[in-house]
Structures are given as structure tokens and as C-alpha cells.
């Protein structure tokens, strides 16, 4: 057992969050899925929600997310996490329900489900991992792949004539009235990770306040399928993805701003 207790003249500055299960993840070295998991767990700890939360895992590299959080969890069919979360939340409106979905799952096969969960203003939170590729199946083109991006199913680079354009889900969902909070953040360096965590916290606070659907899109890395080192992957997010997927707040409901204002006072 690791000694993670402070010595006499020390204080603990950072420790692994309680809500993050002790199980080792299967993610590749440097994959920011792990970072996203950790941030969610930290937020659930800080908000005291561990015992109140139900996770809906999805299909993709994060299929085992249910093993990595110490919360009640289930595993949805590909793309259907928002529908399954709807069933749970409607039955347990007093619980915190969140989905964790990748870009193939959310923006492709589950496009209908995510749009309708937003449109109903379903009071759930979605953490959306955009790494511009299908990770689990081995690096195929995703709806979020960049124009010209070479993948195992777009070997000549994504051609818009053949395969359309990168999907901007945070902006798209922000345009739906039932959405209370829709933002995009990135996980490519420490400063952005800190900003991402704040957004995740706000998203869960939106759910706690009961004001509608909240989603945080996180630009994330896939070093293995991109064929880069973890460090280079972060640079690629910064240099290639951020220009295409601008970071920012696309919808922050007035009620949420008011609620946050109140909680700060």
C-alpha cells in the first residue's frame, strides 16, 4: 500500500479522488480518457455526489468506464447511452445521471439520441470525448475526423465530397432549447485540464439545479491510433484540433449563470 499520508510538516495538495476506482485502466499510455475520468471523479468528490450518481457507459474505448468509477453503473448499447440515461433519470429524478461517450458513439450512431435528450431538456450530464477517431475498433474515420485526416478508413485523408465535414457537436447541441450548458474544452495541457475540470463541475451543477441538459465536449488524444507520442498528441490537439474545434462556451443558460452567482455569494 502506497504511503500517501502527509508527513508532519506537509499538507496534501493532490490525491487520487475517492470516486475513481482503484482498478488499473486499460487505456494506452498518455490517453486522455484517463484524465477525463479523473476530473469527473474529482468533481463528484467535491460535490459530494458519489453515492447519488449513476453512470451510463457507452461503446468505444471507454466501454469499461463502469469499472473505473466507484458508482452505480450500467453499460449501454452503441450510441444509446442518452436513451438509457433518460430511462434511469426519469425513474430516479433525484439521482445524478451522466453518460460518458466518445465521438463515434455520440456523434455518429447515437446522433439521434443525443439530440433528443438535449431537446427534451433531459436533466442529465454528458461528458463527450472528441479524439477525431474511432479508437477501440482501431482508428477508423469518425464524424469528428478533421478534413484531410488520414485514418484506417480514410487512407487518402478525409474527403468532404466523400465523407462530409467534421461535426461540431457542442455548437450543434447549444442550438437546442433544452440544453442548459454546452461547452468545449481541451485536455492537452495543464491549464486546459484545469479549465476542463471547471466546466465538468458546472455541468454537474446544472444537473443538480435541474435546469436541463448539460454537455462538456473534451478534445482528447489518441496517441496509439494517431501514431504519435503522448506529448506530440497533445501538440496535435493544440495545433490541429483546436483551430477546427474552437474552445469556448456555446450555451450557458441564464438560470445556470444565476445559480452559479448565488452559490458563489
Amino acid at each position: 500500500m502506497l504511503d500517501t499520508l502527509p508527513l508532519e510538516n506537509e499538507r496534501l495538495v493532490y490525491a487520487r479522488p475517492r470516486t475513481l476506482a482503484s482498478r488499473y485502466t486499460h487505456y494506452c499510455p498518455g490517453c486522455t480518457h484517463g484524465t477525463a475520468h479523473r476530473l469527473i471523479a474529482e468533481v463528484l468528490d467535491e460535490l459530494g455526489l458519489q453515492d447519488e450518481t449513476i453512470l451510463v457507459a457507452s461503446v468505444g474505448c471507454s466501454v469499461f468506464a463502469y469499472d473505473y468509477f466507484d458508482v452505480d453503473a450500467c453499460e449501454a448499447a452503441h450510441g444509446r447511452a442518452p436513451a438509457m440515461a433518460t430511462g434511469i433519470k426519469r425513474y430516479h429524478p433525484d439521482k445524478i445521471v451522466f453518460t460518458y461517450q466518445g465521438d463515434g458513439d455520440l456523434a455518429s450512431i447515437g446522433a439521434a439520441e443525443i439530440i433528443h435528450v438535449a431537446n427534451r431538456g433531459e436533466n442529465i450530464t454528458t461528458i463527450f470525448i472528441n479524439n477525431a477517431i474511432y479508437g477501440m475498433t482501431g482508428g477508423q474515420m469518425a464524424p469528428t475526423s478533421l478534413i484531410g485526416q488520414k485514418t484506417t478508413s480514410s487512407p487518402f485523408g478525409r474527403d468532404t465530397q466523400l465523407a462530409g465535414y467534421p461535426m461540431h457537436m457542442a455548437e450543434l447541441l447549444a442550438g437546442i432549447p433544452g440544453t442548459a450548458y454546452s461547452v468545449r474544452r481541451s485536455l492537452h495541457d495543464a491549464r486546459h485540464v484545469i479549465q476542463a475540470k471547471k466546466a465538468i463541475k458546472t455541468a454537474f451543477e446544472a444537473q443538480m439545479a435541474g435546469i436541463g441538459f448539460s454537455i462538456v465536449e473534451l478534445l482528447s488524444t489518441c496517441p496509439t491510433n494517431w501514431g504519435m507520442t503522448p506529448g506530440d498528441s497533445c501538440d496535435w490537439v493544440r495545433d490541429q484540433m483546436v483551430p477546427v474545434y474552437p474552445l469556448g462556451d456555446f450555451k450557458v443558460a441564464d438560470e445556470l449563470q444565476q445559480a452559479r452567482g448565488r452559490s458563489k455569494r
Partner: protein
Amino acid sequence: MAQQLLKGNNAFAEAAIRAGCDAYFGYPITPQTELLEHMSARMIELGRVFLQAESEVAAINMVYGAAAAGAKVMTSSSSPGISLMQEGYSYIAGSEVPVVIIDIMRGGPGLGNIQPSQSDYFQVTKSAGHGDFHPIVLAPATVQEAIDLTVLAFDLAQQYRTLVFVVADGAIGQMMEPAELPPMRPLPARAPDWALTGAKGRSPNLVNSLYLGADSLETLNLRLQDKLHAIESAELRYETIDVDDADLVIVAFGTAARVAKTAMQTLADEGIRVGLLRPITLWPFPTEALYDLSRSGKSFLVVEMNAGQMLLDVKAAVGADAPVSFFGRMGGAIPMPEEIVAAAHNALAQPAFAWAGA
């Protein structure tokens, strides 16, 4: 409670409510729409969960979620929607949560039409999603039985933590008959121990159908098979009329069985000894009962509102040496009593696998 004149679809819905259904998700499709409409009013009145989903795919996954959360949950649809929901059935079966599905069958394939049919026999009894499992399949023939079997469906779903279908053709969904509704059951005070309710005071629960290792998935499957065998031995239901003295046994379910009963009166008047075996559970199927009848030298006439789907199960039950004839109507046509009488004459005149098509 006194008899009321009830439409099948409304009877299914109200029976579900009285059986304790506390969450419903669905999508409109004829000829089951009155069922969804009934739920949309009553569930809201009672403070229970009702939601019209954006598609059948979403509906079944909402059902899956609510079941995982501990709800006594139901959806309803008709054939094309039932096809679309297959993804969810398999996940529900794999993660062993209780769900009731009502299928008011219509003509296919494709968009087909909205007329009554029994075209879903294969998909509900044989192929309700990928993987090795059977839902329990209940097939009412009257509005009263629609009520009784819907209540039973909730009990079986909970008892075995399994998927239960109640299938009826559009005629049963649309017809009105006098029937008696059961009293309203109280809702359970709390969710089952395995349900997702937030892990307060206990270790987290997981509802899941993913088992990557071959051994672990086979272990799950062996357990599911054990459960299915237990269901087969405990939950078989069928009705027989005059089979012992019969030369010819008609095998039919749902509306086809009702029409066969009318035909049997004519045949009896003609002095023909004819009986009826009506499966009430389509799965489990009365294989042994049919086998026993075949050993006493009877001929069989299978009547269905399809091209001969249950026919295969009857043939498998009675073996190659028993004569089995078939009469079916498709495309939403309901067989007429006179047609079944003629098919019975044919079956007796040419007992060796005489096929009388539509």
C-alpha cells in the same frame, strides 16, 4: 370489479398499470397506438413515468435504463417497431433485467400494412436479438386473456428477471369485448437490491452485458440456459379442446385460434372429430403435448396468419411421420371459418403433408 366493454389495446395498457407498471416508454405505431395513448394519460395522472421516445430504438434503450434502475417497465409496439427494438432485447436479456413488451402484430415484410397478422412469430420466439436466449412469449386470444396475461407478464418478468413478450395480432388490439380488470396493485416500496439507485451504504451495482472473456461469457450463458430450462418446465401454458377423441387436431394461437373454434362447430355438425390445441405460451412451446398427440395417430392442421412460422415448431414436435397440414393467410387477411373448414377437409382427405396455402 364488473365487466366492461374494453378495446384490446386499452385493456393491455390498463392491465399493465394495475399490475404495477411504473414506467412506460414508447413510440406511436398502428395498430397499437391506443395503448401508448392510454399510457400517456393514465401514467401521468398516477404520477408514474411516461415518455414518448424519438424512435423505437430510443424507446427500448430507455426501457433498458429504467429496468436497470429498478422500474417495472414496459413498452409496446407493432411489427416494424418490434424489429427496430431488437438491439435492446438482447442487452436486456444479457444483463438480466425484467422488461415487458407488448407487440400488436401487423402485416409484413417491410412497411407491409396495418392489418392483423401473426408475422412476428419467428422474431419473438426465435430471434429476438443476437445471442442465445428466448423471451417468454404469451399469446392471448381474447381481451380478457390480454389482461390476464399482461399481469402474468409482469410477474414472470420480475420472477425470472427476464424479457417477456405479450403478442397479439391487430385484431385483438383493435377489438372490444367484455372483460374484467384486476384491482390496482400497490407499487413496491423500494427498488430491488441489484438496481441502480446510487451506491449509498453499499458497494456499487453494475448492470452490464459485456463479458470479454470466452469463459466468463459462457458462464453467463450457461446460467441463462439453466434459467430458460426452469422457465420451460414451469411456465408452459396451452389450451386443449376435444383433442382426445379427435382425428384432426388444429393448432392455432391468437385470433387464428378463435376463428378455428368457430370452424370446429361446423366440423362437429358434420360429424368430423376435430380438436384444438392452442398454445398460450409460444415460448415455451407445447412440444411434448403435441408429440404425445402425434403418438396416438392424429393428424394436424396448423392455422396461422402468416406463411407457416409456428408450423415449423409443430413439425419439429410431432416428428417426420405425423401428417401436418397448414392453412395460412398473410398480408393482414384473417382466415375465415369456412376456409378453415375446407382446410380441415383437405387435411383429412390428403393426410400426408397436404399443403393448403393462402
